[in-house]
C-alpha cells in the first residue's frame, strides 16, 4: 500500500515537474515560431533580455527576434584574440578578404560574443565565440518572431512585384520593451528611425527626428543616424544619437511616439570628416560614461554627468569641436565594433597596423 502511495506521489510530482518544464517560462517568446526565418542579410545585431537576439536585415527590411536559448550565466571579464578575422574566416573555410564582420554583440547572460558576418557570395552568417572557439548559430531552424519595416511612404512595386526601396540598417538597440532601428533609404537621402514594442505587434512609430546639425549650420532632418544608445537623465530617458560629421544629439524618448516630429538638442560636435561607428554606455568606479568609436578619430569617452547636466544646445555654427568635453582614447584608434562585456569591461574589435583585426577587452 505504501508503495502505491509513494508511486502515486512520485507520478504526481513528475507530472507537475514536466508540466512546469513544458510551460513557456517567458511571455516574451510566447508568440515565437520555430523554423527557417529566411534571413537574407544581417546588418546589425543587439541583445535583449533572456538571450533574445535582435537582428536587422536590410535586404528583407525586417527585424527578427531570435531565441538563442543561450541563457546559462557565465562570468567572463577578459577576451583576447589576434588575427581574429583570419581565424574566423578559417573556421568558415575561406580567407579574411572574403568575409565582412557587420556587427558584434555580447550576450549579457552567457558572455558569449556574437558576430554577424557577410560572405562575398551574400551568405549571411551568425557566429559566436565561446571559450575561444567559433560556433555557427544555424538560422535554418530557430525559434523566432519578426516584424517588417513598413515605410511611411507607400512604395510602388516594379513590374515583377518587387519593392524597389532598399533600407540600409545602420544601428539597432533594444531598450525597456522597445526595439529601435536607424537606417537610410536608397532613394531619398533621408534618415529613417523606427521604434516598435517587443514582443512585436502591428504597431510601429515613425518619428521623424530633427536636430540642429551644428557642423552644418542649419537644421537637418535628412542626415541619417549612424549609431545610437538610450541614456537616462534625471529619471527621463533620452535617445543619444550620432550622425556623420559628427554631432551628438539628445532626443526625449517619450516624444518618439506615433509620427511625431521631434526636435533634438545637439550637445557636442566631434568634428567634420568623421563618421561614428558604434556607441555604448559603460561604468567605471561608480561613474557612467558613453564611448563612441569613429572612422577618423580615436574612440572618444564622454563623462555621463556632463551629458546629463549640460543645458547646452548648439544652435550656432561651429568650426571643429564644441559642446561638452570628451576624452580621446589614444590606444583605441581604428576600433570598428564595441560592446559591454560585463559591468566593468568592454569588448572591442580593432584594426591593427598590418590590416588584421584583434579582439580585445578593456576596463578603459
Amino acid at each position, binding site marked *: 500500500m505504501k508503495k502505491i502511495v509513494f508511486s502515486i506521489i512520485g507520478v504526481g510530482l513528475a507530472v507537475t515537474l514536466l508540466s512546469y518544464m513544458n510551460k513557456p517560462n517567458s511571455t516574451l517568446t510566447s508568440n515565437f515560431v520555430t523554423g527557417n526565418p529566411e534571413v537574407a542579410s544581417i546588418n546589425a545585431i543587439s541583445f535583449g533580455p533572456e538571450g533574445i537576439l535582435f537582428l536587422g536585415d536590410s535586404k528583407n527590411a525586417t527585424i527578427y527576434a531570435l531565441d538563442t536559448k543561450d541563457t546559462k550565466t557565465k562570468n567572463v571579464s577578459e577576451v583576447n584574440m589576434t588575427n581574429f578575422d583570419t581565424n574566423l574566416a578559417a573556421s568558415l*573555410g575561406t580567407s579574411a578578404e572574403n568575409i565582412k564582420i557587420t556587427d558584434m554583440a555580447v550576450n549579457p547572460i552567457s558572455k558569449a560574443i556574437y558576430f554577424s558576418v557577410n*560572405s562575398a557570395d551574400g551568405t549571411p552568417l551568425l557566429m559566436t565565440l565561446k571559450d575561444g572557439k567559433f560556433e555557427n548559430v544555424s538560422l535554418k531552424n530557430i525559434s523566432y518572431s519578426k516584424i517588417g519595416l513598413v515605410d511611411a511612404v507607400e512604395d*510602388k512595386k516594379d513590374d515583377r512585384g518587387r519593392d524597389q526601396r532598399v533600407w540600409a*540598417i545602420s544601428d539597432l538597440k533594444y531598450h525597456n520593451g522597445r526595439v529601435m532601428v536607424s537606417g537610410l533609404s536608397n*532613394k531619398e537621402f533621408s534618415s529613417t528611425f523606427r521604434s516598435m514594442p517587443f514582443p512585436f505587434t502591428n504597431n510601429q512609430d515613425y518619428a521623424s527626428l530633427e536636430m540642429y546639425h551644428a*557642423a552644418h*549650420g542649419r537644421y537637418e532632418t535628412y542626415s541619417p543616424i549612424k549609431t545610437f544608445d538610450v541614456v537616462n537623465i534625471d529619471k527621463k530617458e533620452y535617445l543619444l544619437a550620432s550622425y556623420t560629421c559628427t554631432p551628438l544629439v539628445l532626443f526625449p524618448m517619450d516624444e518618439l511616439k506615433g509620427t511625431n516630429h521631434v526636435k533634438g538638442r545637439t550637445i557636442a560636435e566631434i568634428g567634420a570628416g568623421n563618421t561614428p561607428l558604434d556607441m555604448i554606455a559603460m561604468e567605471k568606479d561608480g561613474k557612467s560614461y558613453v564611448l563612441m568609436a569613429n*572612422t577618423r578619430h580615436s574612440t572618444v569617452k564622454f563623462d555621463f554627468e556632463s551629458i546629463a547636466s549640460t543645458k547646452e544646445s548648439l544652435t550656432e555654427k561651429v568650426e571643429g569641436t564644441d559642446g561638452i568635453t570628451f576624452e580621446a582614447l589614444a590606444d583605441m584608434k581604428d576600433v570598428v565594433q564595441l560592446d559591454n562585456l560585463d559591468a566593468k569591461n568592454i569588448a572591442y574589435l580593432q584594426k591593427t597596423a598590418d590590416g588584421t583585426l584583434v579582439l580585445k577587452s578593456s576596463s578603459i
Partner: protein
Amino acid sequence: MNKKSAFTYLKKIKICLVFFCVLLFFNCKEAKEDKTSIINIETNSRERISFKSTSSTLEDLSIVLENQPDIPILGDWSNVGDTITFTPVLPFTVGQTYKIKNKVEAVYVFKIGPDNIMTSTELLAIYPTSDAVPENLLKMYLVFSNPMQELGNSLDYINVFDNTSNKEVTVFLELQSELWNKEHNVLTLWLDPGRVKTDLIPNKELGLPIQKDHNYTITINPNWKDAQGQTLNKTHTKTLIVGSRDSEKPNTKNWTIKPPKKDSDEPLTIHFNEALDYFLALESFTVFDPEKSNIAGTFSLANKEHELLFHPNQAWKSGTYTIVVENRLEDLAGNNINHLFDTDLKANNSKVQTKSQTLISFMIP
C-alpha cells in the same frame, strides 16, 4: 653451443626476422590503406563533399584550409552506409585548397575549381547616362548583370580622377552599410551630401565633390568580383563634364507630353526639360484612363533620362487621360518637385510644399 643448436638459433632469428618483415609489411600496408581510405570523392560542388571511407569514423574527420590556421571548418557531417558527406556552413570558396584530415593526418587534398556554367558578370549601365552633369550631382547608380560580392568595400574598386586638376579625388560618400538593391546588382552611390549642400562645414572645408568646368574620369576596376568570385575582367570608364549648379526644382509645367494616336498602342512620351533620376523616374508615374482606371503597362527611359515612355498593355481610346506624378521624383541634383535638396527644412519653413502628387492631363482626340 654446438653446431646444431647454432643452426637452430640462426633459424629462429630468420623466422623472427621474416615475422617482423611480414609484420612491418602489414603495418605499412595498413598505414597506406589508412592514407588511401578516402575514395570516390566528389568535389564538383561548393555546397558539399562526399566520399567513401572504410577506415574512418566521423569523429576523427575534419576539413581545414591548406596553408592557413589549423581550424576545423564548421559544417555538418553525416554518413549513409560508407558514404560520408560534409556540408560546410559557408559553401567552399572557388580557388581554395582544402585538406581532409583523419585525426591529425591529412588524407586527401582537394581544390574547388571555377564553375563552368557561370556566365561572366558585366557592368551594364552607369546612371546618369549623360556625361554632362550639374556641379551638385547627388547620386549615381551602377547596374551589373549578376549579383556582386557583398563585402561593403565597393569604393575600393571605384576610382575618380579629376582630369582638369590632374589628381585623384574622393567624391563618393563612404557608407558603413552600402546601398545595394536586394538582388545585389544595383549600387547607389551618393556624392557626399554634406559637401553638396552649400554652407555646411564639409562643403566649406572640402568644397563640392565635383567642380564646375572640370572633367572627371570614373574608372571601375576590373578586379572587382561578383558574388561567385569572378572578376569583371574589363575596365569600365565614365566621363563627367561638370556644368552649373542645378537650383531649379523639376517643374511639370516645363514638360512636353506627346499624346499617342487613338486606337494605337504606341508609347506615351513625356519629355522632361532635363535628365531625371533613373530609378525614381521609373517608379514615380501612374497613368489613368478617362474612366479614372489605372492603365497597365511598362515604363522606360530614353534620350539619356530626358524622356519617359509609357507602353500600355492596351490600345489608347479618345478622351482625357491623367498622369499622376509622385512629388518625390528628383532631378540629378536631388531636387524634388516639392523642394530643392539644398533647403533648410526648419519646421516653420512655409515655402516647402508638402503635396505628395502632381496631376497632368492630356487629350487624345
